[in-house]
């Protein structure tokens, strides 16, 4: 079993409105950051898990995202995975 660190990014699906993102965009504009075109607000998770292989870890994360971390009706997700430590 190895340890894996996953960074999971959950954000609104492209076709779904993001009122929070729009409001933050307006706020940035008000502060003078006029070059900002789009803001999408989402969630970020750091997850440490143990798995037999990177493939298994990916499958598990995929399941976690679909069942709990993201609401597939309105959200999309992606994650990256790195080996955190090896256990003999």
């Amino acid at each position, binding site marked *: 079993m190895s340890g894996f660190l996953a960074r999971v990014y959950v954000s*609104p699906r492209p*076709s*779904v*409105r*993001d*009122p929070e993102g*729009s*409001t933050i965009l*307006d706020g940035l504009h008000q502060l003078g950051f006029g070059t900002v075109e789009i803001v999408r607000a989402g969630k970020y998770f750091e997850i440490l898990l143990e798995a037999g292989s990177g493939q298994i870890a990916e499958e598990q994360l995929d399941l976690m995202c679909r*069942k*709990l971390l993201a*609401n*597939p*009706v*309105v959200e999309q997700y992606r994650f990256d995975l790195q080996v955190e430590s090896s256990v003999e």
Partner: protein
Amino acid sequence: MIEVRAQSSELAAEYGLKPAEYDRILDMLGREPNDLELALFGAMWSEHCCYKSSRRLLGQLPKEAPQVLVKAGEENAGVVDVGDGWAIAMKIESHNHPSAVEPYQGAATGVGGIVRDIFTMGARPIALLNSLRFGHPDEPRSRYLLARVVAGIGDYGNCLGIPTVGGELFFDDSYRGNPLVNAMCVGLLRQDKLTRSAASGTGNLLLLIGNSTGRDGLHGATFASANLEGEGLDKRPSVQVGSPFLEKLLIEACLELLDRHLLLGLQDLGAAGLTSSSVEAANRASSGVELDVAKVSRSEADMTPLEVMLSESQERMLAVVAPASVDLVRAVLDRWGLRSDVIGRVIEEPLVRVLDGGRACAEVPIAALTEAAPSYDWPAAPAIVRDGKALPRDPLTLLADPNICSRRWVSRQYDQTIQAATAATDDADAALVLLPGGKRAIALCTDGNFRQDDPYLAGALAVAEAARNVSCTGATPIALTNCLNFGSPERPEGAWQLHEAIRGVADAARALGVPVISGNVSLYNESDGGPIRPTPIVGMLGLLDDVAKRCTIAFKHEADTIVLLGPPSGRLDLAMEARVQGVLREAIHRGLIASAHDCSDGGLFVAIAECCLQASRGAAITAALDYFDESPSRVVVSTSNPEALRSLGVAATPLGIVAGQTLSIASICDLSLDQMHAAYDSGLERTLIRNSELGARNP
């Protein structure tokens, strides 16, 4: 040049039109409609927009009364006179299907929609209520729906700064695949500020205010009537996302514009978006509208005229503005940070003309879309009426039952005190909201059954109970709004249920002298598990002349006599119901009543227990009655003057006295307050936390 393509019944079916309806369109237009025109018919002739399966039946509802200023069907909401130059606008609406697909956003946008229906009348929204039904909370999906729906309602209403002062929540297998989310809004306005939606005055401009237009909820008006759990759950692109912050800005900007007389008319955009709002506004003025979709601000690229016309993007309003006022109007909107587009104008010919950058792409007579909309009388056949499932009879089990226990887990997620006018919420049978001046108040509640299979009784009892709850505060019921939730009317039992429920609502409303001022019909609430029980929901408005005389649930004094007002047992008798309520209000007004609580689910036992729990007082009950009987027209009151109640003209049965810290009912129970609190207070929490509050998103 209007493009004409060869159409067929199959394309018409895609837009929700039956072959016979398509033929009718061909007849009326004298030509084949193009794609966009067909979509306009599909939207305007959908069940949700034209009420084709219920329109004729709704005609029997009593709509007139001296206090009614805007009748049911005239405008977006009904309006009643409440004295001193003030008026109340009120309406209830369903958002059942969207809440099954995405419960948080479905519930949130349901609140958004009903609030727009109210402030479009020129009324400031002052209260929200709701009525919720889910499958049994033992099921993970039901727990998930409950948690997300409550969060959605709370987040949207709280952000708008409107108190959610009442509601009801029930669980039953019948709603397992089809949750019900009915949202009610009440608004306050000066009578001389009443705003209509008619698009009148040739040459006046149409201004689209608020959110940009995207592909949200496309075909939602037809989606609302689709069978769920089959293909329904995959209709993901249809999810509408609400922005309560944007709606709050809309409320303030529109009320300011109306206050300054800068708008000639105002209409909100709901189901079928720009299509229904512009067509209905034209219909009310007997005028026409010309719209250019190229002028509409979009949130997505490459939208077709059809998509723009049918988009259900939230938080948008359509205003009718005199050309000379446009600059002033936009200055106000700018200050509130709201975008606006001049998208069209009022024309004399009574048709809707859709342009795309000046190029005509659809033209249909308004009357064809509205007056000529189909109306169906589906054949009805009575269904077998089963006895509703009984509640447990063990006292503590009953108090802890998810359908009886405290709803505080829900209500504390709703801001009930914003606007500093809430005089009563769950401490009385109806919420009380102060009117300006601080002396008078309105009473508000929602009511419906969850175990009633007999549709006539479901309708009549919903009205009777709602009025009774209002009367228990001392207020007089003066208007009602109703949301009729049913399965498919195309099945004979379904049609019969619709018939009977409306007949029940009509009979009870007439007997109690309460006009129906607005409402909503939600049909096709079915899933693979079959249709829901017939579920008419009533929202009741009452008027209380002196809030100092309000009557609440809790027993007030040690040694007060507890009395059952009304026939100890029996079937619904509407004349008797009216008499009991009249007597009750009179007795409260004369100061004879210390507390009053309606007797319904769980019978006398639950009613008395709740009076004890609210008061932290016990009772010694000695009368020999069936304490679990759920007969109608009964109220548990307490009084220091029981003799006075005997001469009021209705049965007044002494039950016992308020005493100590224990509820003892001979041969039924001897319960301490601690025991009762333990069962009742956290009934919902225990149910929800048993597995996980989050439950499961997928069934």
